[in-house]
Structure formats: structure tokens, C-alpha cells
């Protein structure tokens, strides 16, 4: 497949792997966090860890929108879906995320709630147009990548005069979360030497928003594409910065990311959304200025206002380590539930639900690496 296979070439991968091995000093460790779930998935799916020297370790970050959605907001969505007047449109990823009381959207749907899986905001708009008697709520989640399409949908609905289209907004902001992992509050921190920066998010926001972070925390950031060779090259660039004592923002993903990002998309987002004072992230707690809500002038589309959503904080299963895993403090195998009662079929925590979650990625692609010989049963 043209323009894709080039970025998955095994020969090139081995060449970069040799360069990383040569660059990585034997007297130190290199601990890099890939923020995005897209990178986590690529690393697991292509077996990238098998190509890295033992002292270069990837730590999976919280950049999976499904994983960081707090259970309270999931409960809100389930409650919305249970309203007989509402058709809740959602991405398929969210269907099986557990809410409180063993509920999920897929269970609510089975019990009669009108939940529809959609592939884009356009599908939700189409349903609103075709079924004017239904109140169609789009369950909007995601980082800066998925925010512009939500803004466009709201603008389109206003232009068309659609009165039955609403958005339950859970859009969150990347730079605030990166900062929360390294700086600030009292929570346990993971020791990190650098970041592989987001791919798609950066196509929208550009490279600028990371500069202050790299400077303040003296950590190199290399923005990388989602293909496995992109990640390999970013790792090499990070190792070089560290060895040279630099900590700047570098852009590996120059084929898509510019300094200023997508000005048009940013303008649409700014027109429709404003920053929330604070928002809860699963595993990271409340982070100031880390999420978006609809501006006052778009209230008529705001499901939170129209349907009186009042989020009640919900507690995760106490044995679930999603929080520590999202901060990079623990690995999936450190969680007692991992692979025992928590699997992709019956997820207990959000990291096991989305394919971009670090638990799901490790279980689905990488668990052979921690497999111990099984004791044969006496026959």
C-alpha cells in the first residue's frame, strides 16, 4: 500500500534500531513516555519494543480519550441514553466502558435505551435530520483532533436550524495533561527523560503549545507520526537530545505538523468552545484549564444545559490500577486485575476498553513477553 508501507519498512526499522543502540549510552536509562494512545497502539501492534535496546524503555501515557474519561461522565451519558426522548450517538469505543453499578451503554442499549454507534459527527447530524421527533445527543469525546469536527457539526446544525441536535461535550486538552504528569500536584510521579509528542493533535494545535513545557520542565519533546518508523525515529531524536544535554521541541512529523497548526480548525473551535475552569481526568484527578465546554451563545446545543446534567463523582473499583497506569507509575502487569478478571471481553477499567488503552494494547499484542512457563497439570 503506497504511502503507508514505506513507514512500516522492516529494513529501515532495523537501520534506525542500530542507530538507537549506538546512541544509547550503557551507563544510563532512557525512559520516554508516548503521550498518545495512537503511539501506544503502534508500539504494541508492530512489536516495536523488540527492536529497542534494554535501557530504552517506553512508558505509556494517558492520551487515550476513552481511558481518561472519568466514570462520573460515563454515568451521565448512560443517564442521557436512558431518557426515552433521547437518541445517544456514540463512537463504538465507548459502548463497553463500565459506568457505576455494572452499567454500560451496551447494557443500557440491550435494556431498551436508544444508543446508536456512529463513525463521525456527520452520522449524528444525519440521524437528527432524518428523525426530527428524536432528541439526538452526540457523545463528544477526544483531544484536539476530534474537537474541530464537533465544532463544525454544531455550526452546521445552527445554520440548518436543527432543533433536535445536542452535544454532550467531554473534549479535553493535551498540553494541560502533559504538564499534570510531570509537574504540579502531590500525586506520585513517574521518572521520565522525554516525551514522544502527539501526532494528530499536533496537526491541529501545532508545535508551539509544547515549548513552555519543554523549557520549564527541561524535558525534550519530539512530535512524531503514528507509523512505527515515525516512533523509532522520534526515539532516536530524543536519545540524541538527552546525550547532547538539550531539551527542546523537535518535529519528526514534518509531513503533517507545522508550528502554528491548522488555523482554520482552531478558529472553528474557538468560535464554539471555551475552556472549563477545571475537569476531572481518570487517573490524573481534576486538572485546571484542561477541557472545553460550549460557549453561552451555543447553549441551545449543549446537552449538559438542556438536559440538566449534574456530574456526580464516581469511584473506580479499588483494585483497579488504571489511575497509576495512566500516569505511567505502574505497568499493566502490576495490576492484580490485569488478565484475570479484567480482559478486553470483560473490562473492569477503562485502560482495558479502548484498543488505544495501555492495558488492552499490552494484553492484545504483547502479553507473550511476560508469559511464564505453565505448570503442567498432573494427569
Amino acid at each position: 500500500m503506497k504511502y503507508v508501507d514505506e513507514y512500516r519498512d522492516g529494513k529501515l526499522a532495523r537501520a534506525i534500531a542500530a542507530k538507537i543502540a549506538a546512541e544509547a549510552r550503557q551507563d544510563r536509562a532512557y525512559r520516554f513516555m508516548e503521550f498518545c494512545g495512537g503511539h501506544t497502539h503502534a508500539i504494541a501492534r508492530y512489536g516495536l519494543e523488540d527492536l529497542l535496546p534494554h535501557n530504552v524503555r517506553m512508558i505509556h501515557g494517558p492520551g487515550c480519550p476513552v481511558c481518561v474519561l472519568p466514570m462520573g461522565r460515563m454515568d451521565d451519558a448512560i443517564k442521557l441514553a436512558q431518557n426515552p426522548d433521547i437518541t445517544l450517538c456514540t463512537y463504538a469505543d465507548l459502548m463497553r466502558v463500565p459506568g457505576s453499578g455494572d452499567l454500560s451503554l451496551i447494557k443500557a442499549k440491550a435494556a431498551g435505551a436508544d444508543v446508536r454507534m456512529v463513525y463521525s459527527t456527520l452520522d449524528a447530524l444525519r440521524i437528527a435530520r432524518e428523525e426530527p421527533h428524536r432528541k439526538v445527543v452526540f457523545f463528544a469525546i477526544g483531544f484536539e483532533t476530534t474537537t474541530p469536527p464537533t465544532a463544525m457539526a454544531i455550526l452546521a446544525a445552527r445554520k440548518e436550524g436543527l432543533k433536535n441536535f445536542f452535544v454532550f461535550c467531554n473534549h479535553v486538552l493535551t498540553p494541560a495533561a502533559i504538564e499534570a504528569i510531570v509537574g504540579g500536584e502531590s500525586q506520585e510521579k513517574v521518572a521520565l527523560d522525554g516525551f514522544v509528542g502527539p501526532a494528530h493533535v499536533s496537526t491541529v494545535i501545532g508545535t508551539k503549545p509544547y515549548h513552555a513545557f519543554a523549557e520549564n520542565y527541561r524535558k525534550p519533546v519530539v512530535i512524531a507520526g503514528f507509523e512505527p518508523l515515525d516512533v523509532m525515529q522520534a526515539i532516536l531524536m530524543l536519545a540524541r537530545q538527552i546525550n547532547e544535554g538539550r531539551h527542546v521541541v523537535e518535529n519528526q512529523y514534518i509531513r503533517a505538523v507545522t508550528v502554528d497548526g491548522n488555523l482554520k480548525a482552531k478558529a472553528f473551535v474557538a468560535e464554539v468552545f471555551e475552556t472549563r475552569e477545571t475537569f476531572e481526568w481518570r487517573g490524573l484527578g481534576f486538572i485546571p484549564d484542561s477541557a472545553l465546554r460550549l460557549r453561552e451563545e451555543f447553549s441551545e446545543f449543549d446537552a449538559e444545559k438542556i438536559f440538566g446534567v449534574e456530574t456526580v463523582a464516581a469511584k473506580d473499583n479499588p483494585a483497579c490500577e488504571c489511575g497509576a497506569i495512566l500516569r505511567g507509575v505502574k505497568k499493566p502487569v502490576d495490576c492484580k486485575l490485569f488478565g484475570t478478571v479484567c480482559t478486553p471481553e470483560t473490562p473492569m477499567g477503562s485502560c482495558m476498553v479502548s484498543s488505544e488503552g495501555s492495558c488492552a494494547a499490552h494484553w492484545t499484542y504483547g502479553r507473550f513477553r511476560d508469559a511464564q512457563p505453565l505448570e503442567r497439570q498432573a494427569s
Partner: protein
Amino acid sequence: MTLQRPKHRKLDIRNGRVDLSHGSGGRAMAQLIAEIFFPAFANDLLAQGNDQATFDVPAGRMAMTTDGYVVSPLFFPGGDIGSLAVHGTVNDLAMSGAKPLYLSASFILEEGFPLADLLRIAQSMGAAAREAGIKIVTGDTKVVERGKADGVFISTAGIGVAPEGIALSGDRAKPGDAIVVSGTLGDHGVAIMSSRENLQFETAILSDSAALHGLTACMLEACGPHLRLMRDPTRGGLAATLNEIAHQSGVGIRIAEDALPIRPQVAAACELLGLDPLFVANEGKLVAFVAPDAAEALLAAMRAHPLGREAALIGHVVADDHRFVQMATRFGGGRIVDWLSGEQLPRIC
């Protein structure tokens, strides 16, 4: 009792629709059967018009299977629910090494379903059966109220006979065995996706829906007892089939990504939709496990058959108590090929 063609007007195929009377057991139902199913399936056993078919069977082991078809849309590039029902049932029989002989077909029709579409489906089923050399010998028709079904659902049963001495089974894979697929992966699933109304993209991909018993007969002839087992990787794709075998046989499986035959168009569509071709359904492909020494002979026999031209050796069986299916990626790392979790694509067959 022999069904008589009713004397009143013929069915209005062009504008007519299924109504509740077509499932009531009365004259309307008899007319539907006489004017749509009998001519489409035309064979001596069905023509007897009994509530069952009776027939003699040759010596050997009987194979029996049943299957339900709820594919959406009913007509898709490269096939429709009718031909799919025949191929799917024939293939389930053929994987045991059996020669498929007879099928039953039961139709659940939704009130309001166009008769023209029903005729098209029945004719496609009949054509697929004739092409496969089997007979649809008995059937049933029910009609449910509008909204209680989606157009038409078909359920089938199939009977075949395997020659003496053939005992293919999913628990027979042994460490060292070679694993072969009969052709490109994921064609059916992508063809279905391309025709779903909310997933529109242009693609030249046709469903691979086909009856495989001709191919399996050639394979058995070439390898005989060296052939351990065959299975058709339908829902859940190759990944599900390999995991099933690993569990049934208590072995591990190792495959190589660069050995998998996948059409560039299918790979591209999967890339676009975030799917993995390993999990996408096939309806005219099989996976075979064979003793290592017979692998070359098997591949040669398969490639000599029109439905096995792109057959490829994709991996081998190892001893592994974890029963992991592992793949060496083209990129140079290793990964697990797990069962599909959740629903990648509902109503694919």
C-alpha cells in the same frame, strides 16, 4: 399431498410484497412456494412436495451442519444472502472432508418485503446450489410483522458424506505442522462494508463467497491422511480460526505477517476504517493444517484449483502451553494475534 398451482392470478413479482398471508399456511403460502421457491430450487426431491425429503446415502461418515444468515445489506458486491447461505453451509460440510449433498432452507420473511427481491434471492440460491452440485430438498417459510425482522433471514441445514478413513478435526494440529491459507484475506468483510450505506467508499473488492468443496476434494486427494484439519475463517477472520485451533489442539501457532496474502485494496480499506484484515470475515477461503512433509504437495494441489490459486504457507504449529498465536511483524517485532474482542462489524453473514 402434491402441491397444485392455484388457479387464481399469478404473483405480482414486479410490484408485490410479502404479506402476513404468505406465512399463514393457506393458499397464498402455497402460491409463494410454487411460484418462487420451486422453480428456483428445481429438483426431484423438492418437487415431491412433502414436509420432509427422504433419500438414500452412500456408505461413509455423515456430516451435518446448520447455519443462520442475517447479512446486511442483503445484496452486496460479489453475492447476496441467497448464494452466501448455500456457500456457507457447503463450506462447513466440506471442511470435514465431506462431499456436501443436501440442504434445507428456512426463510423468515418480514411483512412488506418486495417479492422481486425474494425471487432474486431464491434464484441466486438455486444457481449457487446447482453450481455446487447439491440440492435444496426441503424448506419452510414464515412471515413476521413489519419491524420484527429485517427483510429476510435464512437458516439452513446441510448434510454430506465423508469417505471412510477421513477424520479431520480441530484437535489434530501437532507441533511442526504447516499452516496454509487458500487465498487473500478479508475480501468478504470489506465488500460488505463498502456497500453499507453509512460507510461509503469506492472499491473494486468483491466478496469471495464461494463453495469450497471442489478445492477440499483436491486437497484430500493430494495429501490424504497428512491433512490434519481444515476450517473456513468466517466471522472473526483468520485470527479467530487460528485461536480456535490453538485451543482445541493445545498448541501454539506462529505466523509471519509478510506471508499473509492480502489485496492492496483490502489493506487500504482496513487502514481507513481502523480494522485489522486478520479479523475481517472471509466466505470463500480456508485454512489447512498439514504435516510438514506434505506441505509442498498440498500447496501445489491448491494452486492448481481456481479457488486456491493464491494459496500461501503462512506459518507453523509449535509446542506452547499458553496456546499463543504469535506473529512476526513485517516491521521486525513480535505480537500476539488475539481473538477479536467485541463486535468489529455486526451482521457480516
